[in-house]
């Protein structure tokens, strides 16, 4: 039982680490802000989730598990929210997505922010 838990936890930790590096490479290499946002926020959330889950499986103390779960909860709450707010204010601030290469990417970025342009100038 302990062995399985251990293996599972290492799987999560390694997966988290891998996702984190992927996200960072994306953040570093992608051509424009919206693609970078995608790379960073999606992998960021999953990576944080994985690593904290892995740590939870390693933890021995009930209080520690509780606090780690709180961290997980807060991260899953705040990190997509921050990404959303960032994308919205970037769109609002007049930063255009990169259009010429892949139309898919652009429509994806806009369909998630349908209300982004309407409530603009005060």
């Amino acid at each position, binding site marked *: 039982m302990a062995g399985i838990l251990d293996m599972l936890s290492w799987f999560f930790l390694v997966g988290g680490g891998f996702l984190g590096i992927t996200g960072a490479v994306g953040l570093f290499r992608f051509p424009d802000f919206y693609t970078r946002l995608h790379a960073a926020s999606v992998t960021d959330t999953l990576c944080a989730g994985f690593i904290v889950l892995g740590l939870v499986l390693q933890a021995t103390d009930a209080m520690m598990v509780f606090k780690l779960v709180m961290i997980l909860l*807060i991260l899953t*709450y*705040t990190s997509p*929210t921050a990404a*959303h*707010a960032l994308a*919205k204010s970037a769109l609002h601030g007049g930063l255009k997505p990169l259009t010429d290469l892949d139309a898919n990417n652009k429509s994806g970025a806009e369909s998630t922010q349908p*209300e982004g342009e309407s*409530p603009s100038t*005060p």
Partner: protein
Amino acid sequence: MLAVTALSVVFMRDLFAIVMLFGIYSLLSAGFFVTMEAVDVALTEAAVGAGVTTVLMLGTLAMTVRKEKARVKPSSLLPLAVVTITGLVLIYGTLDMPYMGDPDAPVHQHVAPRYIEQSYEEVGMPNIVTSVLASYRGFDTLGEVVVIFTAGLGVLTLLGVSGDRRHEKRPAVMEHHLVLKVITKALIPLILLYALYIQFHGDYGPGGGFQAGVIFGAAIILYTIIFGLTKGEQVITPLFLRYMMGAGVLIYGGTGVLSLLLGGNFLDYDVLAHDALHGQHYGILAVEFGVGVTVTAVMISIFFNFTGRSTLSKDEE
């Protein structure tokens, strides 16, 4: 990494980028404190450096300019020389310093062993930092609280807005961020609860009045950022804040006077209860509470003043 960040601060022109980098810088230094086993300090730096300082600097930027002007006279040779020479002299000085982590270094010989070995019998708190902060060095901490109080007063005098102009209508800036508003509503009770945990758990784990005050203040600041200054001031009115600022210092000093009246020395908590350990416990709780109240009030009031001023100067334009 710290060095790279600091260096890049020098070469950046865009002040906004500098502030962002400064946020990273303080995150890094807090990470450094963690590796140095200084949990309380890391907690404080986390709350203060990454949160409040960034917010305040941004507030200033909103009121002043974003770009640094291009320099007219490139006279940076002399300062550079001064800096290099001073640095070299200081590095020469470090050659005599004890190596890092050496348990025989002079710092560890003076009063620290006493704190480590006897504080549990004398004060009864697992967290040595708290017991040193509030009990052994209570005078110092009282001084610090007064300094913070004074700084709060100073900001109030410099930036405070007179009563009748305060109540002009100010629109909430982030009106259209629906998701942010919902998430914030869910988060704020959590932050407040956590601040209370830090406040009262400070005897056993990292934490205490300073950190709890900053976190509590940060929660209110978050509310004000999202819902606008008018609503923020309905939650905690500026007048109440001023009372709070004073009340914290008074609670601290009052504890001292109480112990004086009960026959002990100033800020000697042994006499506060039937036996010394309980007395220490009550005393530290009261003192930490005072610290927390003052720090909270000062942080919030500084932030209110900055925001209030920036909305006003916008109106004038």
